[in-house]
């Protein structure tokens, strides 16, 4: 009775029933939208998890070189269940990048970046790079040996670029060496600037998807809609599955899998992303024996290490990133969306993926 009254009150003011019907129950998602299509949603949930655990950590963290390390130790060991939020934040930061990479691959192999979805693709790539940047800035915050020395190395890489390189490095670090100024800078980027920009881009990305509809898989649902050059046309999917509950349950299932992975790692290998040097406070006078970047940067790092000319190595990475981000504009305009009918594109994707995997594994063992 009470519940009914509340629902009625809201109904008269917002018209919730109609909204739910239109956007969830009658809203149709393509028939081919399987579990992999939910990865974008999973990435968003993972981002929210990072934000929430990040806020919890923010309650006790002190962004000053003299107190940062100790505050993180206090959180992990003295604050009740501090270890839980710290570990979720730490493990989650690695899993979210894995989710994004698989999502990117899936979208690429679906050739979903083609017209009219270029904005979605570009905003997604920008978000990917921003998330990587968030990881880089976050790594310095505990002020341990790993973070300090990796920041020293990463902030020196731009210095190899001619003319502007030194300037960029100097701006990143706030000086010639990594100091408290660097910490403050990285702190403000990690906690405010980057999350806000990423949230705005998420909004744009999701808006585009809702507006245009989730892309179909050409092998399961034939390309019935000709993408028009002159006007906006939203795809309908009359034979598709209802968003609620079918697709929503798929999304929920993948989110549960995400949590299963996070807690599996936390139970059986909780220090896999916390190598030994993370337990020692930053010591500017002592470089640890092996500074290795986190797994998602091993490929570019190994590339730079292998190619003798540093500038060439970095330029290659820049070219690759730009190519990736603007790929919808490099792709052949008239080619279709079924990747099985496009062997060149498929082989390109597989070669790049194989190279990335080889470089990553090589980087792990060298």
């Amino acid at each position, binding site marked *: 009775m009470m519940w009914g009254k509340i629902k009625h009150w809201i109904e008269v003011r917002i018209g919730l029933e109609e909204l739910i019907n239109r956007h969830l129950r009658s809203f149709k998602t393509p028939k081919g939208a399987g579990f992999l299509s939910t990865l974008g949603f999973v990435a968003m949930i993972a981002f929210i998890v990072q934000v929430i655990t990040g806020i*919890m950590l923010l309650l*006790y963290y002190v962004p000053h070189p003299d107190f940062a390390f100790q505050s993180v130790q206090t959180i992990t060991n*003295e*604050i*009740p*269940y501090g270890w*839980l*939020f710290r570990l979720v934040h730490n493990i989650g930061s690695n899993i979210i990048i894995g989710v994004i990479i698989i999502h990117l691959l899936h979208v690429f192999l679906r050739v979903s970046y083609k017209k009219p979805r270029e904005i979605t693709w570009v905003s997604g790539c920008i978000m990917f790079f921003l998330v990587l940047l968030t990881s880089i800035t976050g790594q310095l915050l505990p002020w341990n040996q790993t973070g300090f020395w990796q920041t020293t190395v990463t902030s020196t890489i731009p210095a190899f670029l001619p003319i502007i390189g030194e300037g960029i490095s100097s701006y990143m670090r706030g000086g010639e060496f990594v100091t408290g100024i660097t910490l403050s800078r990285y702190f403000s980027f990690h906690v405010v600037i980057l999350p806000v920009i990423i949230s705005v881009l998420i909004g744009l990305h999701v808006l585009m998807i809702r507006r245009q509809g989730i892309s179909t898989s050409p092998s399961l649902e034939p390309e019935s809609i000709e993408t028009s050059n002159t006007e906006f046309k939203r795809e309908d999917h009359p034979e598709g599955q209802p968003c609620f509950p079918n697709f929503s349950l798929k999304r929920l299932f993948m989110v549960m899998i995400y949590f299963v992975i996070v807690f599996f790692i936390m139970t059986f290998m909780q220090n896999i992303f916390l190598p030994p040097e993370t337990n020692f406070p930053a010591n500017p006078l002592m470089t640890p024996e092996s500074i290795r970047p986190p797994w998602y940067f091993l490929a570019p790092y190994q590339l730079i290490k292998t190619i003798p000319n540093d500038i060439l190595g970095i330029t290659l990475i820049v070219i690759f990133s730009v190519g990736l981000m603007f790929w919808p504009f490099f792709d052949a305009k008239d080619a279709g969306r079924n990747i099985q009918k496009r062997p060149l594109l498929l082989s390109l994707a597989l070669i790049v993926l194989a190279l990335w995997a080889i470089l990553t594994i090589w980087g792990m063992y060298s």
Partner: protein
Amino acid sequence: MERRQLLKTSLAFLGTTALVSFVYPASKFLVPPQKSAKDAQITLDKDQIPTGTAKEIIYNEIPLVIINRRGSGFIALSRICTHLGCLVGYDSFNNKLVCPCHAGEFDLEGNVLSGPATKPLHRYPLKISSKQITVG
């Protein structure tokens, strides 16, 4: 339909359990542990420490030294050397605190004078009345 109802109920049940399993730790997280060190206070008579001498006491299981400095009054410093943890001793002749392990030296404010230590000795608050000193 019956099966679906069962599944929906289990979903609700498990979901609530999962939610509570995060809300409970989060609520405990928001209350930092109270340091129980507030209770023990140690009071000494000023006469027990003539000028230029020091007294070693244990306060909350931490070895402290209370020094009556010539000209600067009383100070309570932790004896735990900030290098590796040995206990420093008061050298009244040279007005410093010396660590017997690696010859680290500290002045009577606790600041590092020489040796391998980098951080100053931890200083403890003192309440000084006309006849007594209270630590803590």
